[in-house]
C-alpha cells in the first residue's frame, strides 16, 4: 500500500482547488477528489462577476484581497481565467432603490470598498450604454469579471504543475476517521491521508454527515442567461441596488445576464429547471439598464447551484472535535472571494497564522437555545437592514 497523503481534499471547485494548490506548493503530498470535472459546478457556471457591490459587508475585506488575486491570476495561479478589471455601477431607478442603494453602498464603503455615490450624468460618463431613468448610481473602480468557464482549465494546469494528485471523475462515497488520519472511500478503494478538507459546495451537508456532524446547507439555484456575440453595448459591470442584476459584456461579445434569480433544482439533480418568469424578469431588468441589449438574441440559459449557510457567511475553518479535518465553502459571492478564503485555510493547514480570520463553523453547530459562539465571522456580520426593506 502506498504511503498516506499529507492532505486529501474532497471537492474540486475553487475552494478545494485553491487549498490543494497552496498546500501542494508548500510541500504537502496532496490528493484532490472531484466527482465530475474540475470547477464544473458553482465555480464554473456562475456569472463570473468579481464585484464588491454584491458581496456581503462582512466579506468586503476578503473580496478586496481576492479581487487582487483574480487580477494577478497569471502570476500566482500561472494561468489566465479571462479576468477583466473594469468599473462597476449599481443603479437606482426608484426612490426606494435610491434609499436602498445609499444604505448598502454606505455600509460597504465603511467596510472598505471604494464605492462612491454618483449622479446619473456621472454614471453615464462611466457607462455610455445606460438607459434612461437612473436616479442615482454607486460607482466602484474595483470591479470586473472572469470567464467562469475557464476556471477549471486554469486550475487544472496549475494543480498538475504543483504536483497535486488530481482525481477527476472520482466520486467519494464516505470518509472514515482512523489512526493517524482519514480513509477516503472511492470506487477504487480507500485512499489514506493525514489531513482532510471537505470543500463540496452544496454537497457539504452530506459530507459533514460522513463525520457525524449536522450542518444544514441551503441550496440556491441561480439562473443565468447569455446572448450571442454582439457589437459592444457596454464596458462596465452593471447591477442594481437590490443586487438582483449582474450584467457585463465579454471581450468576445456575449453578454451574461445574472443576479441570483432563482430556478428550480436541488443537490441531487442539479439546477435542472429554469423558471420562465424569472428569466424574463432578469432579462427585462438587463434591457432596462442597457437598452441596446434588446437587439441581441438569447443564445443560452442555465442554472447553477450555490451553497449558503444559515447565516449566509462562510464555512471555512477546522471542523470542531475532529483534529486535522477542515471545511471550506458556502462563501456568499464565492466566486469573487473564494480564492482568498481558501488561501487563508491553506495557511492554517500549513501551521501559519492566517492573514485574516477564518469563519469557523462552531457558530452554526451550536444548539438553537445556546447563545451564538462569538467568532470573527459574527463580529464582522451585520444583518441590519433599512426599515423599508
Amino acid at each position, binding site marked *: 500500500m502506498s504511503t498516506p497523503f499529507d492532505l486529501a481534499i474532497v471537492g474540486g471547485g475553487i475552494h478545494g482547488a485553491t487549498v490543494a494548490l497552496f498546500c501542494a506548493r508548500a510541500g504537502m503530498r496532496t490528493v484532490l477528489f472531484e466527482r465530475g*470535472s*474540475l470547477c*464544473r459546478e458553482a465555480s*464554473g457556471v456562475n456569472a463570473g462577476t468579481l464585484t464588491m457591490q*454584491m458581496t*456581503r*459587508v462582512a466579506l468586503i475585506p476578503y473580496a478586496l484581497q481576492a479581487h487582487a488575486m483574480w487580477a494577478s491570476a497569471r502570476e500566482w495561479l500561472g494561468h489566465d481565467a479571462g479576468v477583466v478589471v473594469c468599473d462597476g455601477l449599481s443603479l437606482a431607478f426608484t426612490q426606494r432603490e435610491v434609499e*436602498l442603494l445609499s444604505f*448598502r453602498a454606505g455600509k460597504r464603503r465603511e467596510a472598505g470598498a471604494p464605492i462612491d455615490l454618483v449622479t446619473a450624468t456621472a454614471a453615464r460618463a462611466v457607462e455610455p450604454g445606460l438607459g434612461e*431613468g437612473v436616479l442615482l448610481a454607486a460607482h466602484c473602480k474595483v470591479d470586473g469579471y472572469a470567464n467562469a*468557464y*475557464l476556471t*477549471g*482549465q486554469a486550475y*487544472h*494546469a496549475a494543480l*498538475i504543475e504543483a504536483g497535486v494528485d488530481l482525481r*477527476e*471523475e472520482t466520486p467519494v462515497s464516505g470518509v472514515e476517521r482512523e489512526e493517524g488520519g482519514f480513509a477516503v472511500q472511492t470506487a477504487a478503494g480507500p485512499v489514506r491521508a493525514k489531513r482532510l478538507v471537505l470543500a463540496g459546495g452544496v454537497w457539504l451537508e452530506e459530507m459533514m454527515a460522513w463525520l457525524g456532524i449536522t450542518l444544514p446547507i441551503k441550496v440556491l439555484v441561480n439562473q443565468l442567461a447569455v446572448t*450571442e*456575440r454582439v457589437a459592444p453595448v457596454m464596458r462596465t459591470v452593471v447591477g*442594481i441596488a*437590490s*443586487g*438582483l442584476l449582474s450584467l457585463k459584456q465579454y471581450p*468576445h461579445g*456575449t453578454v451574461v445576464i445574472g443576479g*441570483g*434569480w*432563482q430556478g*428550480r433544482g436541488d443537490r441531487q*439533480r442539479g439546477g*435542472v*429547471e*429554469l*423558471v*420562465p*418568469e424569472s*428569466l*424574463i*424578469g432578469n*432579462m*427585462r*431588468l438587463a*434591457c*432596462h439598464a442597457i437598452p441596446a441589449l*434588446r*437587439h*441581441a*438574441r*438569447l*443564445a*443560452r*440559459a*442555465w442554472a447553477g447551484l450555490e451553497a449558503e449557510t444559515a447565516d*449566509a457567511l462562510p464555512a471555512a475553518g477546522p471542523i470542531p472535535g475532529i483534529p486535522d479535518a477542515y471545511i471550506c465553502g458556502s462563501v*456568499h459571492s464565492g466566486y469573487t472571494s473564494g480564492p482568498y478564503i481558501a488561501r487563508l485555510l491553506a495557511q492554517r493547514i500549513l501551521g501559519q497564522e492566517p492573514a485574516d480570520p477564518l469563519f469557523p463553523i462552531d457558530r452554526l453547530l451550536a444548539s438553537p437555545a445556546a447563545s451564538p459562539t462569538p467568532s470573527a465571522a459574527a463580529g464582522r456580520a451585520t*444583518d*441590519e437592514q433599512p426599515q423599508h*426593506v
Partner: protein
Amino acid sequence: MMQADLIVIGAGPAGAAAALAASEAGLLVVLLDEDASPGGQVYRAPPAGLSVAPDTRGADERAGDALREAVAASAVVWKGGARVWSISGAFRVDAVTAAGSESFTAPRLVAATGAHERLVPFPGWTTPGVIGLAAATILLKSQGMVPGRRTVVAGCGPLLAAVAAKIVAGGGAVAAIIDLSGPGDWLKALPAMASRPDLLRQGLGWALKLGAACVPVLFRHTVTAVSGGEACEAVTVAPVDAEGRPTGGRSRVFAADALAIGHGLVPGSEIPKLLRAEHRFEPEAGGWAPVRDAFGRCSVAGLYTVGDGAAVAGAEPARLSGRLAGLAAAQDAGRLPAHVSAREAGEARAALDKALVFAGAINRLMRARPAMVEEIAKDTVICRCEDVRRGEIEAAISAGAREINQLKHFTRCGMGPCQGRMCGETAATLLARHVGSREAAGYWTGRPPLRPVPLADLLGEFDYGDIPVPNPAPL
C-alpha cells in the same frame, strides 16, 4: 396560459400524426412548429404566392398537402410560427409567436423536432455558397430557389439525388454529384430499398432526370476544399476509401458557385436532453438518441419522442412512430380503451417494422465515417459560431478535457447560437479518439432556448415597476 391534454412540438409527419391520433381519441392537443404551416422538412409547404408547376409536384408535395388538410380539419389547436424557447416543469412550454409570448401547459409532451445535418469540416466549408444538403432542400422547397447557378452536390445518402434532381428541375445546373458511397454500397442497399417500391421509384425518377441532364457522378469521392474566399468559386474533390479517408488518388476541380453538402443526419433530441431524459449512443439511429419504449415513451414521465428527433429513419417511419405515441398518450391519459389502442397500435407497429427495413439500408449509406474527422486539418474551423479550430480542440484535450461539456468550457466550442448542432458531432468524434468512445465523450447538456430568440421579441413592452424583482440578498 392555455391548458391542454397534450402538447406536440414539431409538425412534420411524426408530430402531426401524434397530434391527430391523440386528438381523434378525444385529447385536447396543441401542435406547435416554428414554420408557418405544418409539414416539416420533407413535406414542407411551398411559399405563399409561389405557383408551382403541376408536373414538379411529386408524392412528397401531395403527402404534405394531405397532412396540412388533415391538421386543418381536425380539432388540433395549431400554433404556427411559434419559436419555443423554454420547456419547464411537467410540462410548461413557452413560445414566442406573432401574438408575443404564449405559454401552454399539459401533463404530456411529444417532442417531434426532426434531425439536423452532420457536416464534416474541410478547408473552405464556411465559404458563402456552401450549404447543407438539408438546407438546400429547405431553400428549394420553401423559397423555390436553387442554391446557385452551378452547384456541386456532395456527401452521402438519398438526399444527394433528391437535391440534385430538384436543382435540375428548378433550372439550375449541377456540376457533379460527389458520393462518399460506391456503386456497390448502393447495390447492397437495393433489396431493402425494394421494400418501398414507391420510394425506389422516386429515386429512379431522380436518377433518370440526372442522367438526362448528363450530371457526372463520382462515387467514392469527397470534397477536400472549396476555394474562392468571399464566395464559392471552385470545389476540389478526391477519391476516398469506404471509410471516407482520401486514398491519395488524383484530385479534380469543379467550377461552381455553390456547394450543397451533407454527411448524414443526427437526431435532434434537444427537448429530451433539456428535460434530462436518459440517452444512449445508437450509431444506427444517427447518434445520441433518447432511450424510449416501442411507443416513444422516454425515461421522463409524460414525455414521448418520435420521428427523426428520436432516431433517424425518414418520413414514413416518423409518421408511424408519431401515431404510436399519439395513441399511447391517449391511452396513458385514460381516454382510449386498451383494446382499441392495442389493435390500432398493432397495425401501426407492423407497418413501422416494415418501413424500418428501408430506413436501415439508407442509414447505412448515411453512416458516420470517423476517418473523415481524423483527416481534418489543424487550422480548419470546427465551430463556426465561435471560430474554434481543430488545433484548439486538440490542445484542450491535451490540457485535460475528458468530456464534451468540459471541452466546451475549455474552448467555447458549441457555445454559439447553433448551440453545438453544427460542431457537436465533429468535436465529440475528435474527443472520442482520446477517451475511447462516444459514450465516454458524452453529449452537450440541454439548455434553453431551443433556438436563439431576440430579447425584444421575448420581453415585449414593459414598465420597470412591473418587473417582479425579488427581495435583496442579505447585506
